[in-house]
Each structure stands twice: as structure tokens, then as C-alpha cells.
């Protein structure tokens, strides 16, 4: 008989859940998002005998109260979508805390299988489990597994199939509980299912629970969906997510009264008392069924921590590692980026050659400049993103990420952020796109949004060509380093100020508690790290890529249309013809021809939408010391910051210019004061991040609202700051000579 079942994997973070998920489903995975939230939804498929399983990897959680988005998602999946079996992956080297979630799952009354993972580590630490006894206490079958070695997978699948069959037969009106069912050798025997509740919370709390339970039982709507006892406990725990589901106005005051009675009698909040009772049950069960043979005071992990989070060495080691990550990402990533650029350049050339020389085909321009350029612009980030996420996956899987947050929290907390914000901020100096993707490690949405929004102020690598062009053009040699330093520091300063501002205005709220596990260090597995890296790369290509491509084409159109009118074109054609016929020397001829081409390119850009917008905006740009040429170049720079340099080359008729172009520098010196030049750099630093950043912000915040807010907010900030600097500078007479 073929059948299909849905299996949900639950478990604490760092319990090896993802490894087991990968073992079960291999490459048959699909990553998406839960509707409306940024929590990832990973689904995979696997077969066991006749049974086809859809395996859903729930977010890793410590509990099932509504503390974080992850917990709400995990719980709602179990309640609303009713998977056939829930597998709770348990890190046996940290049994008590891991069982806390298992106990809550049991209370939910779902068909449960416990996977006692990392049983090798536990054995090495000298723990011995009486699996049968534990299984009876908790009322669920237990399978021992070693995730990273793939041990126990068959037994786990057997247990899942059996549990699914059992729960099905129960639903089919079979009131008699199948008392025992022999599983395979490693798995245990399911004890007689407890008819009475799993945990007795003690006289005082039980009294209140049964009171609320009888209230809840009057509500038919609730009864269909929830177990009344479970609902009563959740209400007593003051669960934020459950309250809106209970519409009856009569219940709330009564629950509040119950809660305050408990507090009076026990001197503890109901949440504390309930959690305490659960832990009490767990430690009772563990005392009966777990034996510790070795008294290991200091594990390997403790010894590593003694060095890595040492008061003196901790910070240097952290900074060294960060430098390594940064260096690795952007140095190793550089050559492949070059190859990708070259490849797309070559491809563009090949496609271009399909049309006759000098052809004015719109299709040619669209394919070469718009589409190939756009696709290239998307893929060019891929090496960086893959390398960065390789590094992050290693840091995360090894357990160092939590230490990094531990070390940096003091500093980041001062500006209203979380310790974990530091790493994305630092990556931002390389490129905002992977940096914004790295904010995923932040659990709290407010922290995450704040980090994301201010991240572009970390001066990214693509802005460097702008500084490299301008600084040598306007400032003496001795000041080169200092100017660069000033720019970077301005960015950091503005980021701190903006973060503080955001946290005290629109993203206000008490900072989330830093109650965070420092998981034991582990060797990351190659498979896990590679899968993680690939997922990120793919998400980037799929989600951000499409937006980036779209905007590239729009930007291309803005600089290409409307085309020069025919008489203008004819004029340049004429000039070229004149040059061809009059000038004799080959070299001079080529030079003159190039000059004509450059002039035509300038005219064309000026005539295009971008050029017109630049001109229209001139009055607005004036207070910053900018003319329409800079405005036009800035529009192009939205595609990618470094494009600013090339666009300046076109508007000043010097042709293809790069940041080393002396001719362009000369032109700039003739047209702008050092103050205006500084303002250009300042504006490029702060203003509208490139479209790839906006696209990735949209994707990661799951809303256009925040992406557009970032775009508008940063541009407004840039405008205000630049105007202030330019006006103050002009008044004081600084750098205008």
C-alpha cells in the first residue's frame, strides 16, 4: 500500500537538525519562505519502503511559546497543518534543555518521535541513557542517531512510519491504544500511552488550569482546533500569539485573576512556575534514566573558550578572524569576478558583431547593454556571495558565531543593536549585498531591519573607484590617506547615528534580551557547509537577480532613449566623414574620430532621459555644488556605484574612462572646487545605495516599504549632509580656491 505522509522536524538550534534533514532528503530540497514572514521554509522529500514522505524542516527553537517569529512559525505549522508525525531532534549531550521542547510537543498531543542525536558525543562525555525508561516517561518512541555519520537513519524512518500508522489507526476510531509495538533493534518500545496529563503542575496551578479549562470547553470554536488543557496552560503562560485566537471576552479577566492568584501563592509568575514544573519533570526523568559515568568538568569546548573568549585574547582573535573572512571573500572572489566580467564583455562583443558595424539597432543595444550587461551585473556578485556564505557557514556551524556576538555585544548594544549585527556591518565594507543577506543571523526583526537599513553607510568596495578618481585629482599626496579615512569614518559615524535614530523612532522598542546559547564547538561538515552556501547563492540569483535585471534594463533605457534626432546624428556623421577625408595621418585621424565619437556620446547622454532628468534636477543639486553632469552620472551610478566614473567620462567627452584617467581628472579640476569634489564623494557615500542593495533589502525584509524607505531615507540624509557641508564650506571659504 502506497501512502504519503508529512513529517515535521523540530528541535533546538544546534541540535544537528539540519544535518539530519540533509541526510533524510539528500538533494531533494526546496527552500522558500513562510507566507508573510522572513522565516525560511525548507521542504524535502524521501521514500521509505512504500511510504513517500514530505519532510518539513521547522525553524530551530528552544520552546513553543511565542517568543520569536521562528517559534510562532514552528508552532503554527504543527497546529494548523497537522503533520502526520513530528520528529524532535535532541542533542543528547545537552539533554535536559533539549527535552524542554519535547515535553511541550508532547503536551500538544502530536504523534512524536524523538531522535536522540549526537549519541556518540554523549557517550564520550560519559552519559548512559536508559532509553526504554525515558521513552516511557515521555510517552514517545526514541531512536538513537549520529547525524554527521548518518547512523540511525533507517531506524528513524522505521519509527516515523510506525508512528504515522499508529496515529492514523487511532484517528480511525480505534479507541484502544496499541500498547506496544516492537521497533527495530535500536529503537525502543512505545509504552502504554498516558491517559493522564504528562506533567502535573502541582496543586495550585492545576486548580487554575482546570478552572480555565472548563471555561474554554464552553467555546466550541476553540475545541475543534485545540486541546482544552493545552489552551488553558498557554493562556496562563500569557502567550501573545494565543490571545488573539481566543475571542471570548469573558476569559481574559478570569485568566488574569488566576495568574495573579498563582503569583500570590507561589511567589512566582505563572510562566516561571510552569517552566519550573516542566524542568522539574525533566530532571526527575533524567535522574531515573540517565547515568553519568565520568565527571567531566572541562570539555574540549570549554578549553577552546578559555582562549577564544579570553578577556585579553578574545578581541584580537575575533578581529583577526574577521579580517580573514573579509580578506578571503574579497581577494579570492576577485579573480572569478574578473572572469565573469570578461566573459560577459566577450559575449556582448560576439552578440554585437551579429549586427553590421555602426548599426543603430535598438535590439542590439537592448541585448548587449541592457540584458547581457544586466545579467552580468547580477552574476558578478556570485563569487563574493558564495565565498562569504562559505565563511559564515563555517563560523556558524562551528559555533564561533555565538562567541562573536558575545564579544561584540557591549559595543553594538550601545548603539541599540545586537552583538550579532557586527558581522554584517563589517562585511558591508566589501559589498552591501552579501552583508544584508548576512543579517539573517539576527533573530529579532527590529534589530535586523535597523542593521539592514544603515548597512549601506559602510562604504562598500564599489565606491572606492570614485574616491580613487577624485582624491588624487584635488588633494595633495600627503592628504590622500587622510581623505579616504575621513570618508570611511564619516560613513561609520552616520551609521551609528542613524541606527540610534531608528531605534528611538520608528523601530523603537525595548532591546531584546541577550539570552543566547553558546553552543559547544563542533567540526562543521563539508556537506552541511556546501548546502548552506549553495542555498544562499541560489536565493540571491532567483530573488534579487530578477529585480536587478529589471532595473538594469530600465536604467539602460533611461540612458539610451530618446535617441539623438536624425539631423544631429547626420551632423556627427558628416564630421566623421570630414575627418576621414581631410586628415591624412592615420594616428591623428584615429584621434579625431575618437573625439567625434566621444562628443556624440556626450550629446546622446545629454539628450537621453537621464540627461534630461539631470538637467531638470540642477536647481536642486546646486546647493550641494553639483551641476547637471554630476546629476546624470549619479543616475547611472544607481546601477552600480562604480559606474559613476564611467558616466563622468561620457559627460566630459573623454570616452571610456576609469579611475586612473588623468584627462578626466584634469577636466574635473577645471570644473569643480576641492570642496565640491569632497561633496561628490560624500554624496556617493551616503546617498541611494545601488539597485542591487535595494533589491536585496526588499527580498530580505520581505517588503518594498523598507526597501524604498532605505532608498529615500539615505538619499535625503545624503542631501542634507552634503548641502550642510557645501554651504558651511563655502561660507568659511574652505577648499574653494
Amino acid at each position, binding site marked *: 500500500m502506497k501512502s504519503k505522509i508529512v513529517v515535521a522536524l523540530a528541535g533546538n538550534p544546534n541540535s544537528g537538525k539540519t544535518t539530519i534533514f540533509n541526510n533524510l532528503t539528500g538533494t531533494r530540497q526546496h527552500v522558500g519562505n513562510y507566507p508573510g514572514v522572513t522565516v525560511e521554509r525548507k521542504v524535502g522529500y524521501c521514500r521509505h519502503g512504500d511510504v513517500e514522505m514530505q519532510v518539513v524542516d521547522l525553524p530551530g527553537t528552544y520552546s513553543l511559546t511565542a517568543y520569536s517569529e521562528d517559534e510562532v512559525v514552528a508552532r503554527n505549522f504543527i497546529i494548523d497543518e497537522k503533520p502526520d508525525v513530528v520528529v524532535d531532534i535532541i542533542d543528547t549531550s545537552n539533554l535536559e534543555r533539549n527535552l524542554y521542547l519535547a515535553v511541550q510537543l508532547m503536551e500538544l498531543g502530536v504523534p512524536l518521535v524523538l531522535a536522540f542525536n549526537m549519541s556518540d558525543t554523549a557517550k564520550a562525555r560519559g552519559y548512559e541513557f536508559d532509553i526504554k525508561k525515558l521513552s516511557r516517561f515521555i510517552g514517545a518512541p526514541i531512536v538513537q542517531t549520529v547525524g554527521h555519520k548518518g547512523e540511525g537513519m533507517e531506524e528513524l524512518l522505521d519509527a516515523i512510519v510506525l508512528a504515522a500508522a499508529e496515529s492514523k489507526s487511532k484517528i480511525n476510531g480505534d479507541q484502544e491504544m496499541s500498547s506496544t509495538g516492537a521497533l527495530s533493534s535500536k529503537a525502543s518500545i512505545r509504552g502504554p500511552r498516558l491517559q493522564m496529563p504528562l506533567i502535573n503542575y502541582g496543586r495550585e496551578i492545576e486548580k487554575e488550569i482546570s478552572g480555565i479549562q472548563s471555561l474554554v470547553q464552553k467555546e466550541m470554536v476553540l475545541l475543534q482546533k485545540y486541546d482544552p488543557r493545552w489552551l488553558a496552560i498557554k493562556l496562563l503562560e500569557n502567550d501573545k500569539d494565543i490571545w488573539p485566537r481566543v475571542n471570548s471576552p469573558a476569559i481574559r479577566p478570569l485568566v488574569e485573576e488566576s495568574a495573579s492568584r498563582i503569583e500570590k501563592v507561589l511567589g512566582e509568575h505563572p510562566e516561571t512556575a510552569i517552566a519550573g514544573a516542566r524542568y522539574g519533570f525533566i530532571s526527575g526523568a533524567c535522574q531515573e534514566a540517565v547515568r553519568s559515568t565520568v565527571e567531566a568538568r572541562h570539555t574540549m569546548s570549554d578549553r577552546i573558550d578559555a582562549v577564544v573568549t579570553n578577556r585579553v585574547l578574545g578581541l584580537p582573535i575575533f578581529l583577526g578572524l574577521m579580517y580573514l573572512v573579509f580578506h578571503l571573500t574579497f581577494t579570492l572572489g576577485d579573480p572569478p569576478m574578473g572572469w565573469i566580467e570578461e566573459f560577459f564583455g566577450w559575449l556582448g562583443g560576439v552578440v554585437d558583431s551579429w549586427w553590421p558595424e555602426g548599426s543603430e539597432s535598438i535590439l542590439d543595444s537592448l541585448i548587449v547593454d541592457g540584458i547581457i550587461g544586466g545579467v552580468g551585473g547580477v552574476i558578478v556578485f556570485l563569487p563574493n556571495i558564495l565565498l562569504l556564505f562559505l565563511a559564515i557557514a563555517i563560523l556558524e556551524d562551528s559555533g564561533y558565531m555565538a562567541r562573536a556576538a558575545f564579544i561584540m555585544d557591549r559595543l553594538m548594544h550601545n548603539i541599540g543593536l545586537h552583538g550579532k549585527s557586527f558581522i554584517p556591518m563589517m562585511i558591508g565594507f566589501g559589498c552591501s549585498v552579501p552583508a544584508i543577506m548576512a543579517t539573517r543571523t539576527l533573530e529579532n526583526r527590529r534589530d535586523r531591519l535597523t542593521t539592514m537599513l544603515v548597512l549601506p553607510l559602510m562604504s562598500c568596495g564599489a565606491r572606492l573607484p570614485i574616491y580613487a578618481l577624485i582624491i588624487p585629482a584635488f588633494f595633495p599626496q600627503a592628504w590622500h590617506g587622510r581623505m579616504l579615512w575621513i570618508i570611511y569614518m564619516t560613513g561609520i559615524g552616520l551609521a551609528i547615528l542613524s541606527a540610534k535614530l531608528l531605534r528611538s523612532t520608528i523601530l523603537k522598542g525595548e532591546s531584546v534580551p*541577550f539570552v543566547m546559547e553558546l553552543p559547544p564547538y563542533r567540526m562543521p561538515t563539508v556537506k552541511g557547509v556546501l548546502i548552506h552556501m549553495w542555498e544562499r547563492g541560489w536565493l540571491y540569483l532567483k530573488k534579487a537577480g530578477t529585480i536587478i535585471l529589471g532595473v538594469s534594463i530600465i536604467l539602460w533605457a533611461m540612458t539610451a532613449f530618446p535617441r539623438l534626432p536624425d539631423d544631429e546624428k547626420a551632423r556627427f556623421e558628416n564630421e566623421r566623414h570630414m575627418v576621414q577625408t581631410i586628415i591624412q595621418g592615420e594616428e591623428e585621424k584615429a584621434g579625431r574620430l575618437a573625439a567625434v565619437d566621444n562628443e556624440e556620446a556626450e550629446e546622446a547622454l545629454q539628450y537621453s532621459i537621464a540627461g534630461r532628468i539631470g538637467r531638470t534636477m540642477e536647481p536642486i543639486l546646486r546647493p550641494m555644488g553639483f551641476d547637471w553632469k554630476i546629476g546624470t552620472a549619479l543616475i547611472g551610478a544607481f546601477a552600480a556605484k562604480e559606474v559613476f566614473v564611467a558616466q563622468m567620462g561620457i559627460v566630459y567627452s573623454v570616452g571610456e574612462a576609469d579611475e586612473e584617467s588623468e584627462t578626466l581628472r584634469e577636466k574635473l579640476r577645471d570644473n569643480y572646487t576641492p570642496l565640491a569634489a569632497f561633496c561628490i564623494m560624500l554624496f556617493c557615500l551616503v546617498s541611494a545605495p545601488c539597485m542591487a542593495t535595494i533589491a536585496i533589502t526588499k527580498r530580505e525584509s520581505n517588503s518594498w516599504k523598507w526597501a524604498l524607505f532605505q532608498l529615500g531615507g539615505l538619499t535625503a540624509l545624503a542631501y542634507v549632509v552634503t548641502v550642510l557641508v557645501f554651504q558651511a564650506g563655502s561660507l568659511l571659504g574652505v577648499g574653494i580656491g
Partner: protein
Amino acid sequence: MVINEALSASLEDYLEAIFHIIAEKQAARAKDISKRLKVGGSSVTGALRSLAEKGLINYAPYDLITLTPKGRAVAEDVVRRHEALRDFFVNVLTIEEKEADEAACRMEHAIPKTILERLIQFAEFVEVCPRGGSKWIAGFQYHCDHGSTQQTCERCISLILEELRKKKTQGGQKPMAVVNLKDLKPGQKAKVVKIKARGDTNRRIVEMGVTPGALIEVERVAPLGDPVDVKVKGYHLSLRKAEAEGIDVEII
């Protein structure tokens, strides 16, 4: 207290209400306050304005209301007075919960600090003194209910004496000093006594296994001096000092 002198009883009530609402929902709105205190919207606005003038709350019309550090200190003081009075009424005078709460609400504004301290000390004394304790309070309740005292005084006193002697022979464990987890040094072990944090922070802390009665050991402090790394239930947990401050422990 100097800062309190300028506050009227009703303003103190407002502050107290805001404190409780924030503990539940992170930030308060005028609507919540008027609901809680059962007063009209306009009087809430007036009160909020004058609280804001005194620098006790952050308030702008239609915006969320939060407490300033100064306001929090004052509110905590009011709440402490309220709770101390209510506990005294309930635990010592065996007044019924609701009545005690209402009386505490009115008395908290007027009672001088010295008398309040004495009441707290008296409640403690009743608990600690061998002649007091829960039986003694139960006797007091009997007296209130029946207008007379049970005629078992001799037996009662001899029982007390016996228990006292028994305790002494057991070696008379000295009660350990209760301190803040924040003040523990690396390497010190302690038993969790009480978690004073509220709302989400409290929930998170207990869910991670820091429940009353759990053993906890401070492992180290972060290089920059803030989060601390503690060991509980065999694993490492990091907490900010501000969070550790909400956990009372007994050093072992």
C-alpha cells in the same frame, strides 16, 4: 524622597499603571491607561502631560508612552511600596486579596518611608521568629473570626520549643545571603532563588533552564565587560548584565 514630593497621589497612580502596562506590553498607550485606571481620556492626557513635564515619561500625543530612567525609578518605588503594603495585609493581617490591594493602593501614597520599612521588617520578623510563623498567623485569623483565642497555648508553646531544639541539633544551617547574579565572580556557583524580570525576558530566561532552584555557575565575562557566560543545566548561556540583574541567587 525628593523626587516624589512633587508628585500627587493620582500622578503616582498613573505612573504605577504605566509601569505595569509596559511590563506587559513593552509600551503603553493612553487608551490602555484610561482602561486600567477607569478614568476618562482627557484626564489621562492631562496627567501624561504633567508627568512628561517632570521628565518621568516620554510622551507625545498619539505616540507610545515609555518611562524615562528617572520615571522608572520612581515607578519602581511606588510599586514596591504597594506590594509591601499589600503583602503585609495579606500575609500578616490575613485580609482578603482584593480588599488588601485596594487599601494598599490608597495608602501607598501617604505612608512615610520609615513606617513602611518598619512594616516590612515586622512581616519579616513574624516569619523568622519561632513564636511567629504561619501557625501563629492562622491563630490570629481564628481570633479575628471567632473573637476568642484557642485554649491550646501551653501545647503550642511546647511544640515551638521542640521544633526549635530539633532545628538546633540538625546543625542549624545558616540561611545563605541572597545576591544578584550580576555580582557573582567567574568561578562562583549559586542556586537560583527568584527571577524578577518580567514579560518576554522572564519567559526566555526560564525557558532556557534558569528556573528557581536551578544551579548556575558564572564561567566568564566578555572581553568588553558586558555579557556574562554562565553554565546552567550543563550548557553555556550568555546574559547581559542588565538581565543577570533580574536574577536573585544564593551563593553556594
